[in-house]
Each structure stands twice: as structure tokens, then as C-alpha cells.
């Protein structure tokens, strides 16, 4: 069960308890708020941040008539979601550039948060926007850190400034900026060593780099899987250096990423980018609203809609709809539709963006993409005539199709049967649509 289902279910339960009572007591609200509190804590939002947040939401929930709505639980979640977005910042924040180039970005953070990879990703992203970046290797401590940045640089074909690990990082940074001026680089990205926020010596070093090169933006790189400690880390770095923005990494995993909220709440600084994968192109602008949904476990609906829009051709969709209504939907159309779904990405990924779906929920749903491949192979092994009119497919044709697609006759039979049922469903749906808009029924695809 996903957190979202869990949360809305529990809220509904709480609400059912006081349904006949006419009005919500303080205790009722308290019970509801406890569920929300637990949900946020499970998502790793810092405890203090949760407390403040709950106080805010309580006020709004008490003021509104949540009981009036058909699904009060959902309504409370909406309030929570709104407040989350409010807290995370409504608009997307971008990095800014100095009017006097070169613009200097300084990457800071704990060990293992992903500074070096992120430096490379940023260089690549901003080069696409017309910048000429220079990467600077200031991590003289971790074994092979400089080499890592050099490899990343060569993969991207972005120059890396390094003068070895025997020179003070402050001097490296200074030299790099001079070098950038000479070489006409308008963007300098300084990769610093990972350090604990309580290591004073190393924190002083960062302060000295800052004084020496006066960076336009100091970006704090935070692992999205960070737990309760995220506030201490963000607070320390921000107090010492004055952070300008945050980059959240490793968001391609299954963490809810409550740290995002904690970090934003304690620093007040916007999250500007999100690292989404292993490849050097896997960096995206950060969308606060999507993150709010993710923390609450509501799925990344917006991203899904966008993906669907990218992949889906509206004209074709209209045609398809008409065909469905008029019972002219053929296996040919079905194949095409399947390919469009595939364009949206791996099914598992697409499904995970839906509300109520998370890795736990998907654990038992084995979406066998191989099966989809089988279905595709079967349809592709049919003649055009067979695809447009499956009724002509007799025994020997079935045998041929099975052999041609490398499947069994049973599989071919099953597909044909499921397809017929699907067609009936479409018909039933459009018939229903004529009378009322409700009632989708169970919709089963043949894979």
C-alpha cells in the first residue's frame, strides 16, 4: 500500500469516527494531523520542520469545512499539498549569471553527495545554453577525485583546470579564475572536496575560497536520501557560507526525498536542480510542486502528463477515440497505441508516476515488458488483413502466427480473446458514455 493510500485511508478512518457528530473537535483535527505528521516523518522530513508545518496545516484545516466535501481525507491532503508547495516555493528557481564574466559557481557538500558528477552535469547543461564552462578540480583530499573530474570533463569535452593535489585549494581556485579570463571561459564551476559540516578546518577552507574568488552562486549539493540530519548539514553550510541554491541528487531512486523540504525550510534557499541518473545528461530543473507530490506519495502526475503529451499525437488520439466508439478498432490500431505507450518510457517508470503507485505497490505488480514484446511480435506476424479483421484467423493461420512470432498457439489465442473483450469493453464504455459519464468498470489490457 502506498503512503498516499495509507494516508488518505487513515484520514478517512479518522473522519468516519466523527462523521455523525456535526462538528470537528480539536481532538479530531489532532488525530488527523498525527497521521500527516507520521507520513511526513516517514518521508524523512525533519522533525522540527514537520512540527511547524503541522501547526500551519491545522489552522487551515480547522478553518475550512473539510467535512462538507465528499472525500474529506482527500481534501485534507489537498491542503497539505498546497502548503507543501507553498513552503517549497511556487516558482522554479534558476541559476543566474554575473554581468561581468566569468560567472563562478562553487559546489559544496558532504562526502558522497555527488558534487563531482553534478559539476559535470551542470557544465554540460549550461554549455547547451551557450556558456563556455571551465571545471576546476579543488578536491585535493579524496584519492583520485581530480582524476574523476578529468574523466568527466573529457567525456563531456569540457576543459578541466587542475594543478595537482599539492597546492592549496584556495590558490587553485584563484588561478582557475585567472585562467578562465585568459581562455575566454564565461563560466567557472569549482568542484570542492566533500567535508563534514562540523569539520571546522575544512569549512574554513571553503570560506577562504569564497573570499578569494567571490562566487556568483554557491550551490549546496544534497543527497535526496538524507534523513533527519539534513537540517544540520544545510544550516551549517548556509551559516558559514551563505548558500545561494541547492542541488538535490540521486532522485532517480525510490526515496521520498523529504530532505528537500527540510533543507528548503531551514535555509530558505531554493532548490535549483535535480540529479536524476547516472548519465551526465541526467540533470533537470527542479519543480517544487512535483516534489511536494513525491514527498506525500501522490506520484509525479504532472511529469506523467507531460511525458504522455510528448509521446501522444493528439490527432491520432482523436482518430483512435472515434474508432473505439464505432467498433472499428483493429489490432493495427492496438499495435500503434502500444508503441505510443512505450515511447513514454519503461512501463514500470510510467506507472510509478501515478498516484498510489510506489516501489512497494509495484513490487507485486510484475509488469512483464517481455509479454508486451510478445504481443507486439504476434501482431507483427499477422498479415494486414488479419490485423484489420481478426475473424479470418483460423487454426492454420494461428499456427503460422505463433511460429512466426516465436510464441505458442495458446498465446495467440489469448491475445485474440483479450482483444475481443477489450473491444466489447470499449463499446460498453461508449454506450455508457451516452447515458452517463460514470462507471469505467474494470479495464484489462491483454498484456
Amino acid at each position: 500500500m502506498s503512503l498516499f493510500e495509507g494516508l488518505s485511508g487513515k484520514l478517512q478512518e479518522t473522519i468516519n469516527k466523527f462523521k455523525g457528530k456535526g462538528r470537528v473537535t480539536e481532538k479530531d483535527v489532532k488525530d488527523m494531523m498525527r497521521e500527516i505528521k507520521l507520513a511526513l516523518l516517514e518521508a524523512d522530513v525533519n522533525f522540527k520542520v514537520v512540527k511547524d508545518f503541522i501547526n500551519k496545516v491545522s489552522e487551515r484545516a480547522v478553518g475550512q469545512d473539510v467535512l462538507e466535501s465528499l472525500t474529506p481525507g482527500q481534501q485534507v491532503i489537498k491542503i497539505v499539498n498546497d502548503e507543501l508547495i507553498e513552503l517549497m516555493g511556487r516558482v522554479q528557481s534558476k541559476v543566474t549569471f554575473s554581468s561581468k564574466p566569468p560567472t563562478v559557481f562553487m559546489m559544496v557538500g558532504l562526502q558522497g553527495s555527488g558534487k563531482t558528477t553534478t559539476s559535470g552535469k551542470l557544465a554540460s547543461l549550461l554549455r547547451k545554453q551557450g556558456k563556455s564552462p571551465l571545471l576546476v578540480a579543488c578536491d585535493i583530499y579524496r584519492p583520485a577525485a581530480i582524476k574523476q573530474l578529468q574523466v568527466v570533463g573529457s567525456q563531456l569535452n569540457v576543459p578541466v583546470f587542475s594543478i595537482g593535489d599539492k597546492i592549496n585549494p584556495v590558490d587553485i581556485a584563484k588561478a582557475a579564475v585567472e585562467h578562465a579570463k585568459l581562455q575566454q571561459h564565461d563560466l567557472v564551476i569549482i568542484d570542492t572536496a566533500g567535508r563534514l559540516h562540523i569539520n571546522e578546518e575544512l569549512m574554513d577552507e571553503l570560506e577562504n575560497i569564497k573570499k578569494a574568488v567571490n562566487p556568483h552562486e554557491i550551490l549546496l549539493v544534497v543527497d535526496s536520501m538524507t534523513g533527519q540530519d539534513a537540517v544540520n548539514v544545510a544550516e551549517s553550510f548556509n551559516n558559514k557560507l551563505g548558500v545561494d541554491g541547492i542541488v538535490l541528487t540521486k532522485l532517480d531512486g525510490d526515496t521520498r526525498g523529504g530532505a528537500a523540504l527540510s533543507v528548503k525550510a531551514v535555509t530558505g534557499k531554493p532548490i535549483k536542480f535535480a540529479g536524476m541518473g547516472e548519465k551526465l545528461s541526467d540533470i533537470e530543473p527542479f519543480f517544487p510542486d512535483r516534489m511536494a507530490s513525491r514527498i506525500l506519495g501522490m506520484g509525479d502526475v504532472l511529469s506523467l502528463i507531460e511525458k504522455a503529451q510528448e509521446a501522444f499525437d493528439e490527432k491520432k488520439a482523436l482518430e483512435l477515440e472515434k474508432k473505439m466508439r464505432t467498433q472499428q478498432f483493429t489490432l493495427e490500431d492496438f499495435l500503434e497505441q502500444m508503441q505510443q505507450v512505450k515511447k513514454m518510457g519503461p512501463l514500470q517508470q510510467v506507472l510509478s508516476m501515478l498516484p498510489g503507485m510506489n516501489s512497494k505497490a509495484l513490487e507485486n505488480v510484475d509488469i512483464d515488458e517481455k509479454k508486451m514484446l510478445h504481443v507486439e511480435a504476434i501482431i507483427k506476424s499477422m498479415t494486414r488483413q488479419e490485423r484489420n479483421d481478426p475473424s479470418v484467423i483460423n487454426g492454420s493461420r494461428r499456427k503460422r502466427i505463433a511460429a512466426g512470432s516465436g510464441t505458442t498457439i495458446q498465446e495467440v489465442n489469448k491475445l485474440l480473446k483479450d482483444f475481443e473483450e477489450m473491444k466489447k469493453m470499449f463499446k460498453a464504455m461508449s454506450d455508457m458514455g451516452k447515458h452517463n459519464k460514470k462507471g469505467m468498470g474494470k479495464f484489462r489490457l491483454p498484456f
Partner: protein
Amino acid sequence: MGFFDRLKEGLQKTRKGITEKIDQVLVSFGKIDEELFEELEEILITSDVGIETTSKIIEDLKKKVKEKKVIDPKMVKELLKEELVSIMQDEDTDLNLNTSPSVIIVIGVNGVGKTTSIGKIANLYKQRGKRVILAAGDTFRAAAIDQLEIWANRVGVDLIKQSEGSDPAAVVYDAVQSAKARKADILICDTAGRLHTKKNLMDELNKVSRVLDRELPNSSRETLLVLDATTGQNAISQAKTFSECANITGIVLTKLDGTAKGGIVIAIKNELNIPVKLIGVGEKIDDLQRFSSQEFVEALFE
């Protein structure tokens, strides 16, 4: 410095964090009431213990308080300590490396400190007179091989490597042959950091396992999952998913020298029964310690 002192030094932050707060709570409450338990619950949660485990601990604590008719709030702390010890207890926290060669395979998500931990483990056993060989199985991340090589030189052990981008299973195969030929006692295999949600990368781990099964069927093997102490509830998901493709025998908990409390190990032990075997408490080569549940909890509550 004795082991206990070193552990304490490393855990000072953890101890201060949890016990100071608990003491504060106990001082400020004169009697045992619901609010006291709620405060205790908060303390565990802010240490990343997680809700499920925290709830279980608090429930058990309440029962015990009732059963034993405790009226002194300070006694509640003793009971909580007992409760934590009972969760964390494990008979088997030693690394099981009885054969020569024995194998240690080190896995985990990106950036938790796998390579550094390997350097420290290699050093630990080298000090004990063991012949150690390292396998550079992280062929994916830029300069990961160089990083391990620096560690190998630092410790003074052999490293088996191929070029970046090569098949990790092939590297491990080579390393096994070398371990046999050089009569090594312990072969430690590095692997690339991978998010547990990436199926193909998890399959790659399987392949490495199969090579070891085939080439060293009778060798002792430790599969150590490295977890970053700053990680929150996702560590449970990591432990669960990695368990599915590897028989995890223990956890190495790193970066305990920061302000992170590392309470997640309590949740993992409680929910998945995977013992913590080693902890990383600093950046120095010998900042790796054997985990003892008893002493871990003792140190927390000192």
C-alpha cells in the same frame, strides 16, 4: 586507546545527541505520562530510527512500564536501553573468513563510502598478517579504479584491475585466479555504486555472485552492504532490495563521525534482521571499527 574508548570517541556525537535529549526529557517530566512517551518517540524519530520501529519500541516500553509498575521516569530510560539492546543483539557480528581465500564483496548505493571502507578493511586484515587482494569491480564511475589503486598502495596490498568500462564479473574472475595463484587469504571485491531501483545494475551484481559461486564454491563469503549514516528511511529500502539479489551478511555503517545519529540501523535490525558488522567513524585509515551491539547501545546511553 582501547577498543571501547575508540568506539566512544567515534560515537560521541551520537551519544550526545540521543542521551542528552533523553536526559532533558526525563528531567523535565516529573511523572510518567503519555507526553513523556511522545517525547521519547520524537527523540528516536529524530535519530532516523523510523516510525515503525519507534512505535514498536515505545509500545514495548509502555507495556514494560506497566508490568513493572515503574513510577520513576528515570527508570524508563533504563528500560528503553534494555529494549534497544534486545533489538540490536546479534550473536554473529564477526566477519566469517575461515577459508583461504575468503571473499568479501562490498555493495551499496552511490556515494556511501564503499571504496574508502574497502581501504580500511584491507588495512585491518593486513595488520593482522593476512594476505589481501583487492578487485577493482567498479568499472563504471569515473576514476573509481584509480581511487582504489591509491588505497591499495596506501595499505600495501595487491590490486587486480581492468580498464574502465570492462565487465565487473571478468575483473572478479581475474581476481579470483590471482587470489588462488598468490595464495591470498582474503579477496575484497569493490562494486560500482548503484541505486537499488536500477534492475539491470542489480542483475550485474548477480553475475558477479555467480562467478564467485562457480570459482570459489567452498570459500567463506561476506557480502557487506555499505550504508551512509546520514541516510534516512530509504536505507531500509536499500537493504531490502539489495537483499533480493545478494545474500547480505552484514552492514558497514559509514560516516558516523558527523552529526547523523545512524538510528536507521536499529530499524534495519528490527525489520530485516541484518546485523551491523563494522562502522566507519572518520577519514583516517584506521577509522573502522567492529560493531558491537551491546557496546553500541551502552555508548549511546552513557
